[in-house]
C-alpha cells in the first residue's frame, strides 16, 4: 500500500537530487576558476600583508576572520548544548 506520504517523500527527494545532479553537471572543471583576481591577489600579497608563510592560515584567520568567528561560535554552541543536556544525567 503506497500512501500519499510516501509519494510526496519520493517526489521531494527526486527534486532535491535533481538539483544536486544538475549542479554537479554545470560546475566548472576543477582548478580553473572563472575569476582568478582574488586568488592571485591573496597568493601574491598574503606573505607581505599578514606576515604568515602559510597562506591558508592567513586566509582563515585574517582575510576571512568572520568565517572563523562563526566556526568558533558553532563549536561553543555545541559544547554548551551537550554539557547542558548531559548535566541532568549525572545523578
Amino acid at each position: 500500500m503506497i500512501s500519499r506520504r510516501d509519494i510526496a517523500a519520493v517526489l521531494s527527494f527526486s527534486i532535491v537530487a535533481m538539483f544536486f545532479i544538475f549542479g554537479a553537471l554545470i560546475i566548472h572543471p576543477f582548478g580553473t576558476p572563472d575569476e582568478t583576481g582574488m586568488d592571485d591577489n591573496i597568493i601574491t600579497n598574503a606573505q607581505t600583508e599578514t606576515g604568515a608563510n602559510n597562506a591558508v592560515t592567513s586566509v582563515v584567520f585574517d582575510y576571512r576572520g568572520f568565517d572563523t568567528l562563526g566556526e568558533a561560535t558553532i563549536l561553543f554552541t555545541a559544547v554548551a548544548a551537550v554539557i547542558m543536556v548531559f548535566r541532568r544525567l549525572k545523578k
Partner: protein
Amino acid sequence: MSGMSKIVKTISGIAFPFITIYGLYVIAHGHLTPGGGFQGGAIVASGCAMVLVSYGSIWIMDRVKEKNLSILESLGAICFILLAILGLGFGTVFFNNFLVGTNSLFGVVPAAGSGLADINTGGVIPLMNFAVGLKVIAGLFGIVLVMAYASRTKEEKK
C-alpha cells in the same frame, strides 16, 4: 570496574605526552606549516579522549571537572573575540592584523617567496591560533568527558 587493563593504561600513559606535544606543535606553528588551532586542538583532544577511554570517566572526572573545561573554553572564545576587537581599536577594522610590521611580538614580516620559516611572524594569527586551540581542546574534551560520564553503567555509579 573503571577503565581498561594495566597494559592499556601504561601504553596510553606513554603515548599521551607525545600526542600532546605534537598537537601543541601543530597549534604553535599554525602560521608556518599546515594545520592550525582547530587541527592541533583536535589532536590534543583525541589524546585526552584516549586517556579517558583507558582510565575510565570516573577517574578522570575526579581530577578534571567539566566546569573547569567550560571555563577554559569560554576563555579561549573571549581571547579570540578580544583580539578581533583589538584590531578595531589599534588598526582600522574588525579582525585587522595590527601586529604585522611592528617588529615586536610576532610582528616580523618574512621575506617574500619561499625561504626559511621564522616563528616570530604572522601578527595576531599565532595568538588567534592559541586562543582557538585552547577553545577546541577544552571544548572537545569537555564533550567527550561529559558524554562518557553520563553513559557509565549502574555498578560504576556506586
